[in-house]
Every structure is written in C-alpha cells, then in structure tokens.
C-alpha cells in the first residue's frame, strides 16, 4: 500500500509546496534580522507561482486518490487556481498594509499560504473528513489573520466573533457529517451518493444531515439567516483580510456546498432545493436592503458580499452544468472586483483603518482620478453594469436559472441587482459629486497595492468584454459534473 500511496503524492504537490513554503516563511520571520523580513512577500508569491505550476500539471490526471480522499477534476483545478489568484492578490495587498500597520509580514503571508492550503483541500476533497480538515485549516488560519492586529480591540473582536460562530457552525457541520456517516456507513461523497441511490440509507437521517451540513456551510459562506457575523468581522478585520474573507472562504465554501449537494445528496434534491431557494431569496434581499443604509463602506461591502452570496446560491439551486460553470466564473471575477475594492478602501482608510466612512471619499474623484476611476469600475462591476466581469457573471447565472426554469428566482435576482445599483452609486456620487474637505490629505499609494488594483481592473475588463475564454474554460471544467 505504501508504494501506491507514495506514487499518489504528486496529486497534492500544490498543497505540500504551500505548506513547506509557509513554514519556511515562519522560520525566516523568526530567525532573520528585522531588516530582511520583508522578503516574506516575495517568497510567498514564488510559492504561489510554483503551486500554480504544480496545479496546472494536474490537468488531465482526473481521478480520485489516497483511497478516495482526494479528487482531481476540472472543477477542483479551476477552483485551486482561483484560490491561488485570491492568495496572490491578498499577499500583494497585505504586504504594504502590514508595513503600514507595522505587523509581522512573515506571519501574515505564512498564514495566507496556510489558508490557501485549506481552501485547496476543500476544493479537492472527495471525503467529508477531508472537507472538515480543509475547512478547519482554512478557519484556524483565518481566525489568526483576523486577530493579527493584537493591540487593536476591533480586530480582536472580529477574530473572537468569527472564531465563536465559526467553531459553532463547524460543530453543526460535524454533526451533519456524523449523521450522514451513520446513515450510509461511509464518509466518501460518491459512496454516500451510491448508498442513497441504492436505498440502503435511512432517509430521515439523511435529511437531517443535509440540513445540518447546510447550516455549517451557510455560516462559512454567510447566507441569510447565518450571516450575522459578517458585517462585524469584515469591519473589524484588517482590510486586506476582509477582502480575503469576502472571497476566499466564500468560494471554498460554495465549492464544497456544490460538491456535497450534487455528488453525495442528489437524491435529496427535492428537499435541499427548498432550503437553497429560500435562503437565496432571503440572502439577496437582506444583503441588498441592509446595505442601502450603511455609512461605513466596509460594512456596506460586507452586506454586498452577503447579497452576492445570494446570487451564487441561485447558481447552486439550478444544479445544472451551466449553473456550476456560472458559479466558477462568478467566484473568480467576484474575487477580482472585491479584492480590488477592499484594497482601495484600505488605502483610503489611511494608517490604523480610521477613514472607512462614506464621507471620507468626498471629492476623491477629482483629487485622485486614477484611484477613484478604479474604485468606480469595481463598484460598477459589483453592480453588474455591462462590459464589466460582474455583468457577465450575473448574466451567466441568470441564464442558467432561466434554463432550469427558475423564472421567479431570476426575476428576484435581477430586481435585487437593480436595488444594489443604488448603494454602489452612493459611493460614486460621494467621490465625484461632493467637494473634498479642506483638511484633505492625499492617499498614500504603494507599488504592491497599485499592482493589485491594476491587475483587478484588467481582469474585470478582460473578462467583462471578452468573457468567452473564461466561461468556456469553466464549462469544460464541469463537463460530466454532477
């Protein structure tokens, strides 16, 4: 057995590489003199690049490995790449942030790498145990990242709230796993699917299990009614980490949700569809309507990210390949726009994340046109205006919804995106149509932040104007998926 296992190690090279580099960065951060520690960023980026190479090396090696624990398929590879993009942008954004807030850069980057490991394992896991481990790796890393500003009470509070609710939700998820295991004698997703199909499983247990799992994942991806932690956590967290939290764990959570629901519990579709449908509608409405009245832009983006989780749930509900492809497209592009927006927010918020209110953006439009234009593009993309990736993503999702006859879900969705335009426009209004205060202090830019913003803008326009490449990729990677 050992031989075969040893042969399968290449399948998790990406994760191994990330972990090794993460540990290396930690040690460097400890033993190197302070002056050399900023090297961590470069190393982290190198690690991510290397991992990307390994991941792309897996293309075409579809199959399950480590006795069914790990699955390699287009879906998981696409997601792994997505997570690497998220990670790279986060690393870039946080390097300048960490120096500004004088935090330990090394710890920061290492933890981001560990978080990526967790997300990758989630995307690639074919096993409830692996899902749990990946999720916890991600969660524990993100607990620390949220609280990394040890002397800042808001950061502590964000970390604490996420920690308590996070572990609370993992308990629910675990219980769901336990019941699924009890009902089907296995924790392997495909095996569970087979057992249920064979009718040799107690359906009551299965339904309860699905419900509990949905609660668990619902917390992670912040869908109503499990969203209450989101605004506080995003507001209190170090801004690059808010960005990371709003895209990385969300995408990973949705990936797992889709895989579990479609591979393990297709038989319970009729049951979980109701959950997803209702939760999607609630999530869109609550997210958008509460976002309308926010004055703190970080909270506003938090509620907007809740709303976007709602759109993604629409894609989940469709349960067809179009839907999953749309989900992949959406999570990647959403990552670009949200990280971009949060990066600008963290720049504008100045040292100590103080200026995060709408009024702090007054007059930005003509004081620093480039920055404001970029933020406008991100916001318009979030609002789903054509020629931005946000529109393309919504377009694909609603197309999938209509294709599987979810007309009302689609109508509610588009009306919500019309509502959302209002609060995204509010920021643009303040930037361009209000005069700057007299005590205006220019926003300090940093090369790495500029890189993040530029990359995001380019990505958004690229995938917005010519989405063909990406959507075809997403489609081909979900072939035969469900």
């Amino acid at each position, binding site marked *: 057995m*050992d*031989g075969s*296992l040893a042969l399968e190690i290449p399948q998790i090279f990406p994760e191994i590489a990330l972990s090794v580099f993460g*540990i290396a960065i*930690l*040690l460097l951060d*400890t033993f190197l003199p302070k002056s050399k520690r900023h090297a961590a960023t470069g190393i982290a980026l190198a690690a991510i690049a290397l991992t990307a190479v390994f991941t792309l090396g897996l293309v075409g090696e579809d199959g399950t490995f480590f006795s069914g624990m790990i699955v390699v398929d287009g879906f998981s590879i696409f997601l792994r790449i997505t997570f690497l993009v998220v990670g790279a942008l986060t690393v870039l954004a946080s390097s300048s942030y960490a120096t500004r807030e004088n935090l330990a850069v090394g710890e920061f980057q290492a933890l981001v790498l560990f978080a990526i490991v967790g997300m990758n394992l989630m995307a690639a896991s074919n096993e409830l145990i692996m899902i749990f481990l990946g999720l916890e790796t991600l969660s524990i890393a993100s607990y620390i990242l949220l609280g990394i500003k040890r002397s800042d009470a808001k950061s502590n509070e964000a970390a604490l709230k996420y920690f308590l609710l996070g572990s609370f939700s993992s308990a629910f998820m675990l219980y769901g796993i336990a019941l699924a295991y009890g009902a089907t004698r296995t924790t392997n997703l495909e095996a569970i699917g087979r057992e249920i199909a064979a009718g040799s499983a107690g359906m009551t247990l299965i339904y309860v299990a699905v419900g509990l799992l949905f609660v668990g994942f619902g917390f992670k991806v912040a869908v109503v009614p499990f969203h209450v932690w989101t605004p506080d956590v995003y507001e209190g967290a170090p801004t690059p980490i808010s960005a990371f939290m709003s895209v990385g764990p969300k995408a990973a959570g949705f990936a797992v949700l889709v895989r579990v629901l479609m591979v393990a519990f297709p038989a319970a579709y009729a049951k979980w569809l109701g959950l997803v449908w209702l939760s999607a509608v609630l999530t869109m409405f609550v997210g958008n309507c509460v976002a309308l009245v926010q004055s703190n832009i970080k909270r506003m983006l938090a509620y907007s990210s809740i709303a976007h989780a709602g759109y993604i749930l629409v894609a989940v509900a469709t349960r067809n390949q179009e839907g999953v492809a749309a989900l992949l497209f959406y999570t990647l592009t959403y990552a670009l726009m949200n990280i971009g927006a949060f990066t600008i927010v963290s720049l504008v918020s100045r040292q100590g994340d103080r200026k995060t209110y709408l009024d702090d953006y007054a007059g930005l439009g003509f004081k620093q046109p480039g920055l404001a234009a970029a933020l406008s593009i991100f916001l318009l993309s979030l609002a789903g205006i054509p020629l931005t990736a946000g529109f393309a993503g919504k377009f694909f999702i609603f197309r999938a919804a209509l294709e599987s006859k979810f007309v009302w879900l689609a109508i509610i969705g588009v009306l919500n995106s019309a509502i959302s335009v209002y609060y995204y426009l509010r920021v643009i209004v303040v930037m361009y149509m209000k005069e700057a205060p007299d005590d205006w202090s220019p926003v300090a830019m940093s090369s790495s932040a500029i890189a993040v913003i530029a990359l995001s803008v380019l990505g958004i326009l690229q995938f917005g104007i010519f989405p063909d490449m990406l959507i075809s990729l997403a489609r081909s990677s979900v072939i035969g998926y469900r």
Partner: protein
Amino acid sequence: MPMMLQFANVLVFLAVGIFFLVFSLTLSSLVRPYKYSAEKLSPYECGENPVGSPWIQFNIRFYVFALIFIVFDVEVVFLVPWAVVFKKLGMFAFVEGLIFIAILAVGLAYVWAKGDLQWVRPEERGSLAER
C-alpha cells in the same frame, strides 16, 4: 432482557453507595458535639490566618503555556496508534510519522525563538513592574 439486568446491578450499587453516605453522615452529625470558634469557621490555612481573598487572578502566562501544551499533548493521540501498527505500515508510514513530528518540532522551535517559553518574555521585562 439481559441489558436491563445489567442496569439492575448498577442500580443496586447506586443504592448501597447512597445509603452508606447518608447513614454515616447522619450518624456522625447525631453523635458529634457542636462547639464553634473563629478558628474553626475560617477556611483551613494550615493554622495560619487567611490573607486576602481566595479569588486571585491567574497570571495570563498560564494560559499561554496551557495552549502550547495542548498542541503537543494532542500529538500523542496520533503517535500512539501510529506506534502500535508501526511495523505493519513500513517505511512510508515511518517517514510520514517523522515528518509529522518534525512539523511539531518546528512549531516548538518557533515558540521558543519567539520567547514564549520564558516565564517573562524578553520584551516584557520592562513592563514587569506593574505586574
């Protein structure tokens, strides 16, 4: 129903235990004399007079050590089963185990280098006064 019988045994034990407890306590309370004095009512402090409140704040360091300890204590959970079937698994598992231990060792080194194994962290020496 054999299982119920097993429970019956438990019940008997329970009853007997409770009986002895109640019996001995009541008996002693009946026979013993009642003479109160300040010394007797004070919490037992080796005959010394109690100083200050018993509710004192533990030094936060204890928590730090506790949570460092937890990690290594869980290590055993994995090492014991690994050690038990160690021979059957062979080289691959052996290497894996070593890697596992090595990672934890790195963790220990990290904690050590950060100065968390000292009772008073170097950078906190200055602020020791108000502790």
